[in-house]
């Protein structure tokens, strides 16, 4: 009964497909063989019998395919229905999973919200707000710069030039830079803004304070302009710091290795020229008034920075 019910619901051969194929083939071949037998009995040659049998029977391959579709057609349909059902079920499962995931993530978000709210409430109570973070490493700059303020000190440290650059540079009226080093033994450093090659390299550390003012500070040596002419290897103008000695200026100009006379003309026409001699051993001796000591400085005022040193060889020795 169940078999007929099954048959009426799904009319197909329930055996596996290869078995069904073999069955069809065997049946068609059996029929063909019987036709051939009949023709052979009538006196046909075997080759003729085969050809005639095929003509009467039709193409066995085509018929086998046709038969297969009939026998298994419903099964193929059933398999398609199965596949469709599987896909529908699969999508339903995936849909439910995704939905579930969404709900989960929503609840996670809610939990995060609650946690954030709790944290905010705790922070509002000053007694609880304990910052575990170490204070940031900063240096400060104030006064005559474009953007005064606190600047983070990078791990490798930084020099004054970088800080000034970070602060947007000096204003045009800046004159003196004070660096208040936050280190116990260090004294404040004072720089003139006219000596960028000197102050640029000043190293900074945490909590150092840089103050830039418009006032001149005598402690900050300014840059001055000197010119050396005469019997030296390197004639010409050069920069040096206010307070530099004539000796140091001449040393850089490579003076002669013999005794020579030096006349320092001050830029200020009212100032008395300084005269001195250079001995054969390179030491210089001031020859003129007692008011100039041996280490008389090329004491130019900042307003009159330039000076000219004229180095002259004594006449008799020059012609030796």
């Amino acid at each position, binding site marked *: 009964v169940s078999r007929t019910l099954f048959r009426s619901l799904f009319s197909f051969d329930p055996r596996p497909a290869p078995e069904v194929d073999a069955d069809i083939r065997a*049946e068609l071949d*059996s029929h063909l063989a019987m036709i051939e037998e009949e023709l052979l009995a009538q006196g046909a040659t075997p080759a003729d019998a085969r050809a005639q049998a095929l003509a009467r029977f039709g193409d066995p391959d085509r018929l086998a395919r046709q038969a297969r579709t009939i026998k298994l057609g419903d099964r193929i349909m059933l398999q398609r229905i199965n596949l469709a059902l599987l896909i529908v079920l699969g999508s339903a499962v995936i849909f439910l999973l995704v939905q579930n995931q969404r709900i989960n993530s929503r609840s996670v978000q809610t939990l995060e919200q609650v946690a954030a709210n709790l944290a905010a409430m705790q922070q509002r109570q000053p007694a609880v707000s304990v910052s575990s973070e170490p204070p940031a490493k900063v240096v400060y700059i104030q006064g005559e710069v474009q953007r005064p303020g606190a600047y983070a000190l990078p791990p490798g440290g930084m020099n004054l030039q970088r800080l000034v650059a970070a602060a947007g540079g000096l204003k045009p009226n800046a004159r003196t830079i004070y660096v208040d080093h936050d280190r116990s033994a260090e004294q404040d450093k004072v720089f003139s803004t006219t000596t960028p090659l000197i102050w640029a390299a000043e190293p900074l550390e945490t909590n150092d304070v840089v103050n830039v003012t418009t006032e001149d500070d005598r402690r900050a040596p300014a840059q001055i302009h000197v010119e050396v002419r005469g019997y030296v290897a390197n004639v010409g103008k050069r920069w040096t710091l206010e307070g530099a000695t004539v000796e140091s200026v001449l040393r850089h100009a490579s003076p002669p290795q013999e005794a020579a006379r030096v006349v320092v003309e001050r830029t200020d026409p009212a100032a008395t020229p300084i005269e001195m001699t250079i001995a054969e051993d390179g030491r210089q001796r001031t020859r003129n008034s007692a008011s100039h000591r041996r280490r008389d400085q090329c004491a130019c005022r900042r307003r009159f920075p330039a000076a000219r040193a004229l180095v002259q060889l004594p006449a008799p020795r020059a012609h030796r």
Partner: protein
Amino acid sequence: MPAKDSTPELPQGALELLALRTLARAPNHGYGIARAIELASGKALSIEEGSLYPALYRLENRGDLKSEWGTTDANRKAKFYSLTPRGRSRLKEQTALWEKLSTAVSRVLSNDPAPERAA
């Protein structure tokens, strides 16, 4: 289903009916059914014998026939078909239907109007 030039092409369903009719007498295999139809029609109907099989398989799927492998008188393996009760009732039903249809077609062809309509 290409028909041979000298023989008429069978209308759809006719082959199934002929197979059922043949098997109503005795179970038979495909070759036997083909021979029986050929003989019974006075060789007027010569089918492409292979085309019998799609008809047989359809009938078997519907439950009108059942099949079984057996041996012929010549001791050859062959599949034998036989009518089921369901096939027997279908044969009756289809025969009646066919007779009705062929009468109607014959009437139309002989241009002889149905008596009730003429009256």
